[in-house]
């Protein structure tokens, strides 16, 4: 089976998962987790397998590179990162409601990757600047960071909805804790991602920082989450304010990931 078939299957399962989670929330059926959770792990496995298959296909064409070098590969990779982080959080906290936010986002990303005319699916060998192992370290750490921020975004939306509705169930406190922890994790990963990117830039271009739009936007994102963590740790911002700040942070993540590529030109323009 080739990579696009496998990735297509995972996209389809993610879509069904979105519907399943909607059903779970709307009809208040937490029992469906018994099906939804194993299905999520299975979809994740297919997604990762599809991505690895893509890797194998690059070897078959004789170019052999880790598939993280264009929008198509980036989207399929970030999707499995998000689902992986989501499932780890879910396994630890058993919150249940995050899936209804995560799966629509992931299926949207996957569908966009395979259907949009803006996204080129061809395997193209790497230009010289990208031929570096730092590509893998840099991109994967950044993506894991983005994934944690995505989970925190889901928790933040869930928190705000709960606040409007049946308010003070003890779930809100747990959600607040997830927002904080996911942001902390994401912050660490983004920090490592920026540093590894900087090491790579220094080796490839001779400048560890050039204020390229992608770099600058990753710094802006970093600053927003740094503000969140300071507000939390030294001023004890919790609840609504923290949730809103997380959503703002996630908008910056989205702009760093998509906006910079489509709206601003720069050194990262190949990705």
């Amino acid at each position, binding site marked *: 089976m080739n990579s696009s078939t496998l990735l297509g299957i995972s996209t389809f399962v993610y879509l069904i998962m979105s519907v399943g989670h909607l059903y779970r929330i709307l009809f208040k059926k937490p029992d469906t987790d018994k099906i939804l959770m194993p299905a999520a792990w299975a979809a994740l496995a297919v997604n990762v397998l599809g991505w690895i298959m893509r890797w194998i296909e690059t070897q078959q064409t004789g*170019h052999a590179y880790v598939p993280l070098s264009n929008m198509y590969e980036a989207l399929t990779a970030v999707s499995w990162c998000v689902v992986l982080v989501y499932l780890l959080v879910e396994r630890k906290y058993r919150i249940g409601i995050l899936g209804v936010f995560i799966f629509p986002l992931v299926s949207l990303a996957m569908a966009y990757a395979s259907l949009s005319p803006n996204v080129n699916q061809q395997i*193209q*060998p790497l*230009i*010289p*600047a990208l*031929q*570096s192992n730092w590509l893998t370290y840099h991109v994967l750490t950044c993506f894991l960071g983005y994934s944690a921020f995505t989970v925190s975004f889901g928790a933040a939306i869930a928190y705000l909805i709960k606040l409007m509705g049946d308010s003070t169930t003890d779930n809100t406190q747990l959600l607040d*804790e997830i927002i904080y922890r996911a942001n*902390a*994790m994401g*912050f*660490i990963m983004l*920090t*490592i991602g920026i*540093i590894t990117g*900087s*090491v790579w830039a*220094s*080796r*490839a*271009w*001779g*400048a*560890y*920082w050039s*204020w390229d*739009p992608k770099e*600058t*936007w990753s*710094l*802006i994102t970093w*600053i*927003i989450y*740094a*503000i969140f963590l*300071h*507000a939390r*740790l*030294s*001023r004890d911002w919790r609840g609504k304010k923290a949730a809103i700040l997380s959503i703002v942070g996630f908008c910056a993540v989205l702009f760093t990931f998509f906006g*910079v590529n489509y709206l*601003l030109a720069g050194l990262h323009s190949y990705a």
Partner: protein
Amino acid sequence: MNLKKIETTLSSTKLTIWVLLLISVASIFGTLIPQNESIEFYRSVYGSKAGVITGLALNDTYHSSWFIALIALFAINLIACTTKKWTVFLRIMRHKPRDADAKTLKAMSIYHSWPVKTYKDTMTGEIHQAVRQIGLNLKIIGATSNGISFFAEKGKISRCGFFSVHAGILLILMGAVLTGFGFRGSMMLPEGETSSKVAIGQGDRSKNLDFQIRCDEFEMTTYQGTQRPKGYKSRLTIVEDGHDVLTRIIEVNRPLTYKGVTIYQASYGTIPDTDRIFLGIEPTDSSREAQRITVKLGEKTSLQGGEYHIIIDRLVPDFVMDKNCEVSSRTHVMRNPAISLSLYKNNEHISDQWLFLQQGSFHASRSGPWHFIFMGVSGKTYTGLQLTKSPGLWLIWLGGFCLTVGLFIIFFTSHERIWIKFKKEGNGGVITIAASSNRMTMFKSKMTGLIQAVEKITGILTTSERANSHE
């Protein structure tokens, strides 16, 4: 002025948040407005607002004085915050397990106290066990006939995270300042040539290295059957005092560092070979023959008959004329090459003119008894090197390391302290548990469990029992 107040402001988290916000907003402008373009560019895109952009230096946001001032303010804030916490930090790090008085314990975020009938020595072991359950090791710090005190502590290192992160960021900023003492430039080195001259900035300044670089060979490979570049490679030799010191092949992502200068493969291209300018000369009458000659830049070339001679004064690869009618080259690429030719008759200057390659066949350049046609110029492949001296780089990496390690310490460790005391009162006594941590959320639930466990071990004297014991 109130110095104390300034100090408090400078070390406040509120200032941190505001400065970080301002830096973000400035950076957003910097990404939305194209940077370092010509004034004409801003005029054509932003019209009357161009003045605002250049006035606020938004055309070079990240190097503007106000942006640097913001970063300096951030650094000051960072130093102030860090030093403010330093004394508290030292006190905690030096803290030896000791008995705390009742007042201190009562002020802790977790404080619980209850009366017991009696205290038996066997309970010590059980309490010890209960504390071990939550990952701490209890020690006896005071035992008198009046009672007994225990203390447990874990994760002192957690307090270092804050300093490691902040020191890391400061190191990075210091590294950035030190980078300013280095340089970043480029060198276009044709195969076989040697140079020590580095062009800095837009090429208007230059710098001489204290060694020379020779390009022995340049090679570009493409992916089979495509124009897509696969790799650029240069074989470089470092020359010092006329001797070859070392030879290395550099590639993109594989630079060479020599004497603190790192040499990167950045680009390649062709530049005109000034020794091989091809000129067509056609006589305007039939008394002379047409000829094709190769001339060198700046060298006198006599024409047929010996009466006339020419000199090529200048060669520009990409001809452009500015507002003041000054000729310059827009780029170093041969996009619009032109030469300036002077004609002399019996060593007397009689005319000069610009000849363009693209208009070569167009006989516009009649001069004396000749038509001159600029037929071309040989190209030389050059390797585009980037040269950087970055004396602050090691500080950047050290800072990045401290920052990352510090974050792990902050988020994965916590400093926990627990005091447990028994104090004799009448026939019975009172058990007190107090605890504190720098990460309360998880610790609170752990402590609730511990308090329940200890209550179970010692038992709680009910009010009626207590009344009885006092009789």
